[in-house]
């Protein structure tokens, strides 16, 4: 058991547990907070995988942006004065059975597959490489994503204004 492994299990546990609470918690605000932890766990996993920049972005965008947005959504769509901001669930049993089976099978597939793993050294400081790629080879996609974001923002704003 190396320290790397321990850290992995730790983060995996954080991620999965909080994710479980996200989907099971009846209180929507709680769920949102659990989601924060999930994102945090995922960030850790990224770090473990040597993706430092992705991890940072995850933190900033998800935690700083998306989550806030979601909470705002919760706030707006539930009257704050309403004490009970819990939400109901539907057909939990068939979903649990289906998802459970699905998890099992996919897991089995993953375990039974012989992954061709290429041992490569842990990358250090991916930032400059990523930046170069973004502005050379993937510049078109980069630009398109920029436009997409812009469009999404304008669209969202105009839809919400109505």
């Amino acid at each position, binding site marked *: 058991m190396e320290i790397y492994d321990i850290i992995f299990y730790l983060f995996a546990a954080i991620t999965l547990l909080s994710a479980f609470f996200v989907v099971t918690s009846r209180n929507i605000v709680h769920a949102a907070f659990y989601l924060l932890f999930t994102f945090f766990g995922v960030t850790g996993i990224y770090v473990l995988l040597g993706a430092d920049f992705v991890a940072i972005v995850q933190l900033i965008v998800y935690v700083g942006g998306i989550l806030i947005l979601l909470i705002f959504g919760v706030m707006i769509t539930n009257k704050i004065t309403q004490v009970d901001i819990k939400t109901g669930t539907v*057909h939990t049993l*068939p979903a649990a059975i289906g998802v459970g089976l699905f998890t099992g099978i996919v897991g*089995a597939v993953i375990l*039974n597959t012989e992954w061709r793993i290429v041992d490569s050294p842990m990358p250090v400081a991916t930032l400059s490489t990523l930046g170069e790629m973004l502005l050379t080879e993937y510049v078109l996609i980069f630009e398109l994503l920029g436009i997409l974001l812009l469009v999404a923002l304008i669209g969202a704003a105009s839809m919400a204004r109505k």
Partner: protein
Amino acid sequence: MNESLLINFAVVILFLPLLGFIVTLLLGKKVSKIFIFENLVMLIGLILSIVLLIAKVTTFNNVSISSEFMWIDMGDVPVIGQIQIFLGLLLDDISALMIFVVFLISFLVHFFSIDYMKGDIRYNRYFAYLGLFTFSMAGIVLTHNLLMMYIFWELVGVSSYLLIGFWFEKKSASDAGKKAFIVNRIGDLGFLLGLLTLFLTYNTFSFVEIFTEISQGNLPLNSEFGLTITGIFIFCGAVGKSAQFPLHVWLPDAMEGPTPVSALIHAATMVAAGVYLVVRIFGILTADAMLIIATIGALSALIPATIALTQNDIKRVLAYSTVSQLGYMIMALGVGAYKFAFFHLITHAFFKACMFLGSGSVIHAMHHEQDIQNMGGLRKKMPITYATFLISAIAISGIPLTSGFLSKDGILAGTYAFGTLTGHWYFPFIGFLVAMMTAFYMFRLIILTFHGEPRNKEKYEHAHESSFIMVMPLVVLSILSFFIWYTPNPMDPEAGWMYSDWIKNPELHTPENLRFGFMQSDVTSVITPPGEHRIMYSETYTAALHHVHGSAVFLSIAMAVLGILLAFVMYQWKKISADILADKLKPLYKFSYNKWYFDELYHKIFVAGTIGLSRLIAWFDLKVIDGIVDGSAAVTKAFSKSIGWFDDNVIDGLVNLTASVSAFIGLIFSKFQTGKVQTYIIMVIFSLVILLFLFKSF
């Protein structure tokens, strides 16, 4: 004056009338005096043609001048080689003489028409048409090749059509024009075939080149028969245009046109074109072809003469007389009396034109009365017209001291000689018979018109001598009917310049074995002057001609006098009543009076036949061919209807069945459609699970 200038003269002469035609036609509506231009043009043409004739018979005697340009170049044609079609003019003795005749008469007719047509609503157009006609006629006369001859041949037909139908408001006039054109076309078909045969063999249309080839022994279609048939084909054109039997029916009808037109076209020039054509190709006619030509000519001389005996329309009598005289010429050509035929063509042109114009003068005076039974006694009212008419009638009857005697006697002598040489005696027989009949009906005409008592007082009272403009041409033409213009010896044309200098014996190109015996060259050939080389009239013929000359002269005068006497006996002195005679010979009289029923016969057979056939074809087209088309459409429709039923009930039934099955299944499955995303996702997940189990990739 040199040759090129002369040929340029000819070109100018040819195109002057065309200019007149175009200008007069286009300006006719705007400028009412434009007809003066047309007359002026004709006068210039006449002067030029006189100059041309004089130059030709003096300086350029014996030479024929031609000039040509390439009209169509077919390039290097496979197998044959170069084919080029030339058009051009040929100026030799006959064309120079003929162009003068054409222009002289044309000018006189123009002049005459100024008064005669006065007051007509299409006055200027009339002169334009005359110009077109003169142009076409000049083209026929001056051309140096067969194609151009054919082109102008047809153009003459059209201008004749336009002029005959000039008063097109009258149905009879437009009918006559149409008839003339179509009957002419029948002859032209033959002409066309002859043309095609010659071109096929020699790849050229030029007279000179064709004649050269033939005299070198290259015959059309490589056979002697080919040469004969070619000659006959081309002669067909002449049959149409010169109104020869059996295509003579159009000419009397053509008298529906204005009378000066009849004088110009249907007496002096256009109908002479047929004779002119035969004159042109005389050199390549075989003995067989000539015999046929002579036979046609003889029939054409005889039949119309018999018809003319009983006609009462002044113009019709003249028309039949024209056909008869043209038949004379054709017959003369057929028996080899080439020079006499052409001579008669000229003399006839003058005196027949004079008679037609004279009849025009009479008709004009009588306010368009044409029936001689309503005339009589006009001698006193119209002395000049009477005198000129009489001179012409004497000329046509063949009384000495006139031009008609010279030419007609020559023809009769020719047929006589032919009879003695070949044994075909019916030619001279018909010749002399027709001579007598001609004299008879001509004087019948004169007596009924000018002598005796007026039978229609009222019209008679109004009659008067015509104006100078109308009389002048009559005088000119009648003066030309005297012998003195042609020969110093009134009894012997051979003594004159016309015969010895102006008209030459033809050059023969037909192979010797295809000619008549008397036309073959023999050792005792006549010694001819240097210019007249290769002239192929043998000693035998000349001898025969001289031998019969005396008796021919005697006989022809006797016949003419007999005919005239008979006319006087019957109509002037009334010793024999014409009516009683007609009554006695009723069938013959009716036969003659009804023109041998040619019109009826042709109408029944050809016109009605064609129209009937065309109706049949139209019916066939509409009912049978279109019926098949429509029928197949109907069959297809019926078939498609049954298919449609099958489709509606069987195929569509199956389709509807599947549809209802699907609808049923759909009804069941629609239960699964909750509209909630979550339900769908659960289903997807379950299906995925099932699929994963099924494929068991783990």
